């Protein structure tokens, strides 16, 4: 299948500004970097969390705890795809007890990924709070989940796809919306 890209809704500068703002909001809300931990959800969430971590380091001059979460094993649709989804490593190399954890993901949509991420996180320990930061909130929640930090709210129709590309993973920083109704025959 080939998709037609409808529009770039967020470019490299927008992304950079959003990350800077979110980093400051996190520090503000948590009154500094003490007890703070960032956990990125694979794959783009990890890249975003890395950038936030660097930004916080710049501002506060301190290394905060950092983890990577693969939520595949917590998904509620393991058997629905054609093949088993590939599983990658989860790494949370610090105790969660008493931490103020910020989960980071690229796009918030139905909320199911975040549900899985929270379930996974709880298996590792008992953080004092779990907050959620996302680059894009595109609406259409199916679970009672809301983000604490948002780069940009983008209204979409439910069958649109939002693709976040990060230069570390994709060679370019941009967010665009794909409209399958303009899908080409292939």
């Amino acid at each position, binding site marked *: 299948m080939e998709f037609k890209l409808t529009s770039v809704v967020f470019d490299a500068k927008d992304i950079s500004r959003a990350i800077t703002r979110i980093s400051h909001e996190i520090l503000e809300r948590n009154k500094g970097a003490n007890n703070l931990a960032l956990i990125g959800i694979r794959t783009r969430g990890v890249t975003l969390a890395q950038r936030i971590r660097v930004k916080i380091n710049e501002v506060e001059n301190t290394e905060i705890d950092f983890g990577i979460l693969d939520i595949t*094993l917590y998904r509620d649709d393991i058997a629905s795809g054609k093949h088993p989804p590939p599983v990658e490593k989860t790494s949370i190399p610090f105790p969660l007890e008493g931490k103020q954890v910020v989960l980071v993901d690229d796009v918030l949509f139905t909320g199911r990924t975040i549900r899985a991420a929270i379930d996974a996180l709880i298996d590792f320990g008992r953080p004092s709070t779990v907050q959620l930061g996302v680059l894009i909130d595109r609406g259409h929640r199916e679970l009672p989940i809301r983000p604490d930090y948002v780069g940009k709210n983008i209204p979409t129709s439910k069958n649109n796809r939002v693709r976040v590309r990060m230069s570390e993973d994709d060679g370019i920083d941009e967010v665009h919306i794909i409209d399958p109704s303009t899908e080409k025959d292939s």
Partner: protein
Amino acid sequence: MFKPRSILGANGLKKDEIVTILDTADTFKEISTRPIKKVPTLRGRTIINLFFEPSTRTRTSFEIAGKRLSADVINISGSTSSTVKGENLIDTAQNLEAMNPDILVIRHSQSGAAEMISRNIQCPVINAGDGFHEHPTQALLDLQTIRETKGSLEGLKVAIVGDIAHSRVVRSNIYAMKAMGMEVRLVGPPTMIPVEIQKLGVSVDYYLEKAIQDVDVIMMLRIQTERQNRYLLSSLREYSNLFCLTSKILEKAKDDVLIIHPGPVNRGVEIALDVMESERSLILNQVTNGVAVRMALMYLLLGGSDDSVN
């Protein structure tokens, strides 16, 4: 991604399929180090361990693997006296299948048992060892253990030492290792080397000291003490003299040689105690990896829904 229907043997597994299994097992290994050693992935799924042969480690490993994925695991010990009418193996399997398990793990003393069961039921089957035929999960955990330490498998030389003829571990390892581009040398008394095994692309040697000098991995096999009654051995004493891996013999081997053993070990018979406990010995790593490999296989069998891919 690799989507097997059943795991009956290592024979026929392709390199990329083995890599997928090992990569998946690598990620699953971390779960066993968590404070809560469980993920909900296979919640509500049922795995039956049908063991017709006594086994502690393999059965426990499958049980733990299933439970760490939140599956319900049921252990059944079958009687091996299937020659008795009314105790037909296929009947047993079909009865179990009527209770809708998602995976049937089978261990049986007779070669071909897993394949036969798999032909007669729909549910995926994992062969946990059939006679002298195959024990694929053991081979996979052996490879994972070696890869973890050596980094890669391609080009490694392995000596497998002991009763080759009566070992399902050897056959599975030959297939898996050959698929991964490894070189396999079988070592043992000629009475325990099966005819025409060279056709599987392996070499044969009768002399331990010479055979291990250039290898990267030595796999020692358990010697069944009852074999001497079948004209295969003169005595355990002589077997031990000729084939026991001692630190003295190991002096001839490469410094970074790894030692593995599918267990259970006859301490002092096929492997000396100090060798077993040396840092070159990965025997306990094998056991740890066994859980991860079996979790990976369960995940690959039950994740996804494409039944058409074999």
